[in-house]
């Protein structure tokens, strides 16, 4: 599981001074410009704090102070509530490059190389000439230790300038203070603010407070009290292991027979599976692995593919989870729709990985311009080199238009959309050692593709539902607001009575219309009922007129049943789409009685499909 840079470093350590090494690799280490140097330092310190809290099962509460201490210098203070560091380890953790065993383990963690915070210390020391100041306390009944340290750039050993016990008001935790040449920038993607904001999204269990140089305080509040599941160290999985890696494993193993070598060097290989693999490769299980050559190794790799091996365990991974990604996105974006997904684990080159993704759409997100892409590897935001990253490439290759989202050909989709992708892996393949872009590994791209397409489908379903709702809302505006005004205004200009707009409403809504007109004529009045089917289906219904008057000269004749002192006149009507019919009858009543006439009632058409009449579900007063 060697890392090329780590090997390189190990080899060179004796021959060149680390100061020289740092100068040559500033860009790789993330210290190539003043703004970036600050971001990198914040990143290393915050990563350490989050990792430490997680290992100890503490909900992280991290404070970041950025102070302008000189024209070109900044003092950075990062304070956490983690478990603290025991006194004797403090100098090595902060003032010795490559301290720590992290890069030997197969386990998902934020910093993969352990160059981490000591690189920031070295940068600070080179640019400001000041030592790093550390306070750390491991518990209530323990003293707080204050250290001032520098790195001896010849020997890569810590030099202790001060080592004191002091009073500190925290129960436990660590505080790092660094002074460095750096600059604090705002308003762009690559900034401390944005880095912390994105960190807060994928670490919703953390509370992060940033104090900017002008004293402005920003709180990224915790959205969940739930700790992420801690990752365990595991052996590599045989699927996708590279030939060279296998060769090295064969050469350096302590086992003397192939079958046990397989069983104890890989995960998911048991006694039975080891035998199967040997059989499939045509190699005696008792063979000494040290004697195997390239061809044998190739056969073993083929055998790994042929023999059924259980999927890699995800214990070594720490995905964030759909729910927490949802919470993270929700707390930092005001969107109309958010959806998230965690894929099942997969393998690349023997390393298990999980792709997680989230999409936020609409709301106050920017409507113009390309989608905002939030990229993360092992919960660390990737701010630089978006264009070189497998995440970006995969998103660009998806045909977004089929999901109802705009996209210039071959580019990122456009519109009010944020796409988050997190890759959790024991080994994330980056394009370069600066670790800002994930390499185009087919297995990973395929998982990203599946995750995002699933989310895009959900967004598309949401959008089409919204469209229907909008259409409905639009019609409501027309019929409730505009048409009544149009009717009154035109009537007012022409000095005519306001027209009845129900027939137009029925047409716009696609409803069944019932329009009753009464032509007053002395004591006998002519009633004309017009029914019209504006729906797209044939409608069968019963029209009821319930009042205390008998009807005369009806056409067609109703079925009339008395209810108490009233009559229920019923017409059975069937109308095809677009069809209309008139029902006529005479009525004897006083003018004021006419005004009190209840509205017609329709039985058999839903309320939402009816204009000009009341709807009922069941029979009215049938048989009294």
């Amino acid at each position, binding site marked *: 599981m060697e890392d090329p840079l780590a090997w390189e470093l190990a080899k060179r350590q004796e021959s060149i001074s680390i100061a020289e090494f740092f100068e040559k690799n500033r860009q790789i280490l993330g210290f190539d410009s003043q703004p970036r140097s600050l971001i990198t330092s914040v990143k290393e310190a915050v990563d350490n704090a989050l990792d430490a809290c997680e290992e100890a099962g503490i909900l992280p509460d991290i404070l970041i102070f950025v102070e302008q201490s000189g024209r070109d210098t900044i003092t950075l203070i990062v304070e956490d509530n983690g478990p603290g560091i025991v006194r004797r380890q403090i100098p090595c953790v902060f003032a010795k490059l490559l301290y720590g065993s992290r890069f030997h383990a197969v386990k998902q963690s934020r910093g993969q190389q352990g160059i981490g915070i000591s690189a920031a210390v070295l940068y600070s020391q080179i640019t400001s000439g000041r030592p790093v100041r550390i306070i750390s306390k491991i518990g209530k009944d323990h003293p707080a230790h204050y250290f001032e340290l520098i790195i001896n750039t010849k020997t890569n050993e810590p030099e202790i300038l001060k080592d004191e016990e002091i009073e500190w008001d925290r129960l436990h935790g660590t505080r790092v203070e660094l002074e460095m040449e750096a600059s604090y920038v705002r308003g762009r993607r690559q900034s401390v603010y944005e880095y912390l904001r994105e960190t807060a999204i994928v670490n919703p269990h953390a509370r992060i407070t940033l104090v900017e140089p002008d004293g402005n305080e920003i709180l990224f509040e915790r959205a969940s009290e739930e700790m992420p599941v801690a990752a365990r160290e595991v052996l590599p999985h045989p699927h996708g292991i590279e030939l060279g890696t296998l060769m090295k494993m064969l050469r350096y193993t302590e086992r003397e027979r192939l079958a046990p070598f397989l069983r104890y060097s890989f995960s998911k290989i048991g006694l039975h599976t080891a035998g199967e693999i040997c059989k499939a490769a045509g190699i005696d299980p008792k063979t000494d692995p040290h004697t195997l050559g390239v061809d044998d190794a190739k056969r073993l790799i083929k055998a790994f593919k042929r023999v059924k091996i259980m999927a890699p365990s995800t214990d070594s991974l720490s995905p964030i989870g759909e729910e927490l990604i949802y919470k993270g996105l929700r707390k930092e974006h005001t969107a109309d729709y958010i959806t998230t997904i965690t894929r099942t684990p997969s393998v690349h080159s023997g390393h298990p990985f999980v792709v997680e993704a989230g999409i936020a759409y609409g709301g106050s997100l920017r409507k113009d311009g390309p989608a905002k892409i939030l990229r993360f590897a092992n919960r660390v935001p990737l701010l630089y080199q978006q264009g070189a990253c497998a995440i970006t490439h995969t998103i660009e290759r998806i045909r977004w238009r089929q999901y109802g989202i705009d996209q210039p050909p071959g580019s990122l989709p456009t519109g009010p959309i944020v796409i988050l992708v997190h890759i959790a892996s024991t080994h994330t393949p980056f394009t370069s050692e600066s670790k800002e872009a994930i390499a185009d590994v087919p297995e990973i791209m395929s998982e990203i593709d599946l995750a995002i397409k699933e989310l895009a489908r959900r967004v598309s379903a949401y959008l089409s539902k919204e469209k229907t709702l909008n259409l409905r809302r639009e019609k409501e505006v027309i019929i409730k607001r*505009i048409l009544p005004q*149009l009717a009154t205004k035109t009537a007012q*200009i022409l000095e005519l009575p306001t027209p009845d707009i129900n027939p137009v409403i*029925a047409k716009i809504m696609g409803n069944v219309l019932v329009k009753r007109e009464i032509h007053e004529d002395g004591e006998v009045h002519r009633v004309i009922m017009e029914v019209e089917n504006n729906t797209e289906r044939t409608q069968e219904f019963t029209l009821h007129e319930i009042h205390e008057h008998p009807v005369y000269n009806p056409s067609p004749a109703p079925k009339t049943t008395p209810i108490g002192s009233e009559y229920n006149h019923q017409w059975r009507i069937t109308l095809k789409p677009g069809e209309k019919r008139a029902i006529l009858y005479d009525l004897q009543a006083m003018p004021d009685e006419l005004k009190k006439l209840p509205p017609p009632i329709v039985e058999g058409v839903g309320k939402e499909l009816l204009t000009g009449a009341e709807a009922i579900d069941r029979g009215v007063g049938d048989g009294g």
Partner: protein
Amino acid sequence: MEDRDLQARASLKEVIQRIYEQLEDGTIPYLELPIRTKRNIELADEENVWTYGKNTITRSAKTTKGAYQLLKTTYLCELLIKDHLEQKKSSTLREIYYISENWKHAKFNEQQESDRLIEDLEIITGLRREDFHVRPEENGATIFGPLRLKETTKRGERIIHCQEDVGEAGYQIPYNVENIEFLEHDAQLIIAVETGGMQDRLIENGFDEKYNALLIHLKGQPARSTRRLIKRLNTELQLPVAVFTDGDPWSYRIYASVAYGAIKTAHLSEEMATPAAKFLGVQPRDIIEYDLSTDRLTNQDIKALHNELTDPRFNTPYWNEEIKLQLKLGKKAEQQAFAGKGLNYVTDTYLPARLTELGLIKR
């Protein structure tokens, strides 16, 4: 009320009547209008100007947008009928936009919207906005030259000679050109000039006197009144017209709106376009022939030139050749570029040469 106002009121009421009747009939209200793009303009044979073709758009209350437009049209008609025609008042385009503040849901979102609806009403009724007492914000441009005219103003009649009775700025064209009567003139031709700087140059050099030219300042894209005046001078006094602009795509559009009619107001082309107007320059070929100082064409310029290649108004061999030449050169030139050859060059050399080529003057 005067007859003209009565007629305008009747026409507007008819529009409202149409909507009212549709509501009564149970028809979803709509208005039908010609589509106002370059794809829908055609040459009206008798008049030789570009007017709208047969393609129409239906503005229906089926959509909120259409419904709001109908409501706004109704409010606008009410204003024109009750406040303008019946009260003998007038408003400017901008004022109408502000008046709509009180119309609640019928309020215009921007002036462009009210301007457009007024044009719609012109099309529907076959009248002009002046008939509804609607004025543009600014008055027309200016005219300078040997012409005596009579203007009927609100304060009586004024007789003005456009060289002798005016200052160096010339006579200002009023918004309603129908109030002008031409009395007498010595003019031989009309030169419509795009920029004020060039207009002043021609006056300073005495070009109007030497060639008996009426100089009309277009002030960029010419106002309706300016175009109407050119049209009237051309038809009533039989004066030939030459249009002198910068040599860039936007200036060709200025010429096109004088000669052929503007796409936005093609319904008025018959009254405002002067098909006999000739394009004087600056022509793309002049850039080479006169070796003018130039600027590089911008992306917008190139886009506009390509656009003109598909504009039916520019679909002539002359324009095809000139536009393609310009695209090939990648250059444009301003009227003022002639100053590089001396201040008299434009009046002594270029204009006489071009006017001779066009057959407008004889050497």
